């Protein structure tokens, strides 16, 4: 039978199984962020022409490990923790099938370790995309498959817990928006993992010699069916966290449940097929398919993200204005708790994700514009704008609330924590920007030597390209210090943090005490007709930047050689 404790900060009824699983998944995630982040730093220092730290073979090994450990292992372990949190805890429900959840956890961990060993052994430096016909050792694929099946089990436990919570009526009416967002993530995750199975299982057989040939186009189409949707899992999870943080810190309710939920649904409906933006310059696909796939499936999902981009800050603005911060357009924003890492991390990630990751992604995903960005370092620039200053920064922000709350401990370095989101967000935001800048000059991604010193024929990049890769290195160091402070703070808090004096000791702005929270839930009416002019102005600034940047790139495209 499930046992519960009551959270002194929030009043939530916490299933002890869920409690433990969330903690283990989250801690494991952070450990892999540490490992993967270190590899990232080594990679960035190698791509800094004046430093050029690693040898070629180690560079490609480190890059493979970096992609796997952060994109796959860190994000997904953290997301599993979020799934358990948003189901069992937010619904005051018991966790169903905790044993299966543990099996899932161990499969993920063992899978991640197997793949890491294969990579570190040096015979599987194939990048996390593992495009055939380049072949990794068989255990490289086996580890990923195990990891994926483990994650699938986690999703199943989540759905089962939702189902039982509904049946046992642990909550009334509809599930909360945050849980709804997490459910979106979980549904896409199931699709993602199935695509992964369709492509990686045959590839594993191929590496065992049981299959003689993997078609490279088919591989890229299906692999990106997984690779792309998994990014939508990240986005959905991250946006669920944004709504959660808005609710926790401000008691904010969404402007309209209908709009926010529909925006999540757009992700489910319009993302699954969208793998073609990775294949816009590949042979063998028609332009009709490319355009249909990227725009049908992508622009409506982009619409979803643009909606969240308005409703999340809008919800905060509405809540702040209700509290009387009503002066001018932006008092609600200037008086926000910028010194609280939960808020600062979230606010930065909303802005950086939109401006750096969002705009560049849509630009690159345009059939013709992809010609001038494909496989340049613009691409890593783009996704450090999404998955690093978006997803990772958001996960960091919510950790500053989840860890002290679940463990009931005080942060060990609250002073450092104040600065951490800025160091990490701005550092990695700059890194993303410099990578995009260098990519515009044609600097390739996944490349050890942009001076081509060992080639029969060379090519000289303009000095600006070298400069930008150097600045990328500097910014990456800054970002890495930010990441290190986060990890130190989390691990430190868990190991040596002072126990919280229940409830009263909770910093007021961080975790509202129980009456506050439940009061907000029952007594707030609809935000209804409340205007959010400040947010609207910000959204228009975003749109104008988007439009300008988009057309600047068309202009750039029109100046290159003719192709038809």
């Amino acid at each position, binding site marked *: 039978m499930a046992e519960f404790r009551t959270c002194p900060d929030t009043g939530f009824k916490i299933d002890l199984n869920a409690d433990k699983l969330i903690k283990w998944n989250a801690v494991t995630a952070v450990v892999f962020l540490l490992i993967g982040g270190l590899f990232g730093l080594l990679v960035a220092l190698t791509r800094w022409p004046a430093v050029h730290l690693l040898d070629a073979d180690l560079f490609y090994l480190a890059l493979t490990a970096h992609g796997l450990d952060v994109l796959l292992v860190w994000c997904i372990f953290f997301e599993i923790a979020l799934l358990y949190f948003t189901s069992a805890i937010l619904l005051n429900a018991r966790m169903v099938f905790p044993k299966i959840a543990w099996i899932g956890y161990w499969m993920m961990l063992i899978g991640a370790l197997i793949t890491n060993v294969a990579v570190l052994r040096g015979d599987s430096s194939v990048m996390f995309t593992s495009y055939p016909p380049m072949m990794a050792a068989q255990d490289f694929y086996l580890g990923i498959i195990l990891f994926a099946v483990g994650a699938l089990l986690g999703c199943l436990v989540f759905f089962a817990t939702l189902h039982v919570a509904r049946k046992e009526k642990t*909550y009334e009416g509809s599930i909360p928006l945050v849980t709804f967002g997490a459910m979106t993530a979980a549904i896409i995750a199931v699709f993602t993992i199935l695509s992964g199975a369709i492509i990686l299982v045959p590839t594993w057989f191929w590496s065992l010699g049981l299959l003689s040939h993997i078609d490279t186009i088919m591989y890229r189409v299906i692999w990106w069916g997984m690779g792309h949707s998994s990014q939508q899992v990240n986005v959905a999870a991250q946006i669920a966290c944004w709504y959660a943080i808005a609710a926790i810190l401000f008691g904010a309710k969404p402007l309209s449940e209908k709009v926010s939920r529909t925006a999540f649904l757009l992700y489910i409906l319009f993302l699954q097929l969208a793998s073609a933006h990775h294949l816009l310059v590949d042979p063998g696909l028609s332009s009709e398919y490319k355009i249909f796939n990227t725009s049908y499936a992508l622009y409506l999902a982009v619409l979803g993200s643009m909606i969240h981009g308005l409703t999340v800050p809008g919800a905060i603005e509405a809540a702040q204005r209700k509290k009387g911060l009503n002066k001018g357009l932006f008092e609600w924003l200037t008086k926000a708790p910028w010194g609280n890492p939960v808020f600062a991390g979230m606010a930065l990630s909303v802005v950086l994700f939109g401006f750096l990751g969002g705009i560049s992604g849509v630009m690159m995903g345009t059939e013709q514009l992809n010609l001038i960005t494909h496989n340049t370092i613009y691409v890593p620039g783009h996704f450090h704008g999404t998955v690093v200053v978006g997803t990772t920064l958001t996960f960091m922000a919510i950790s500053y609330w989840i860890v002290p709350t679940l463990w009931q401990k005080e942060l060990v370095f609250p002073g450092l924590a104040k600065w951490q989101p800025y160091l990490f967000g701005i550092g990695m935001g700059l890194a993303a920007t410099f990578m995009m800048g260098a990519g515009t000059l044609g600097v390739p991604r996944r490349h050890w030597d942009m001076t081509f010193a060992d080639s029969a*024929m060379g090519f000289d990049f303009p000095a600006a390209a070298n400069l930008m890769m150097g600045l990328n290195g500097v910014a990456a160091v800054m970002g890495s210090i930010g990441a290190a402070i986060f990890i130190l703070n989390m691990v430190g808090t868990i190991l040596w943090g002072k126990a919280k004096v229940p409830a009263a000791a909770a910093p007021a702005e961080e975790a509202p005490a129980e009456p506050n929270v439940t009061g907000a839930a029952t007594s707030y009416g609809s935000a209804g007709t409340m205007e959010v002019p400040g947010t609207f102005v910000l959204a228009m600034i975003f749109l104008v930047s988007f439009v300008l940047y988009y057309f600047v790139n068309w202009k750039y495209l029109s100046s290159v050689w003719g192709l038809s």
Partner: protein
Amino acid sequence: MGIFPPPQRVWWNQPIEKSEVMWITIAFIWALVMFFMMPYWHLVGEQNLSNEAYKIKPEVYAEKVETWAAKYTVREEGDTGIPVVRPPAGSDVYMLGRLWEWWPVLELEKGQSYRFHLSSLDWMHGWSLLPENINIQVHPNYEMIFTVKPTSSGEFGVICNEFCGIGHHTMVGKIHVVDK
């Protein structure tokens, strides 16, 4: 509040905030504009990648390129031993990617259109023409054909931007473009 069930059970009948309606309308129009830009560029733009491609065995492709290159070789590129091939203006040109070179070096005329054939003999490669910054994914077993019209002259580098093993960063080829 987002972390609790919506206060009204029937949340889908709640009114939608005015700024939301406006924003959704604007964003949707923008999505349509972006959508129509792609077909529009197919009609009026000069940079559209053709999707013509055929399955081909690497050996067959290699032979095709070598026979063709032998016919039109005009000199060697410096002391690299790599032939410089100058096909008649407006004809078919071939390039192949293999570990770790783009072969052969080409000499093209500015302002002429060429039918450009591209394939890989082994792994995937990334054909990246610099400083133009035109990038194409090259697969083994697929021969891609597109029309290229150099609009500037000089010496252009072709580097590889799809990871293809330990010599990936040494894979550089060249295209000379001469004024008529």
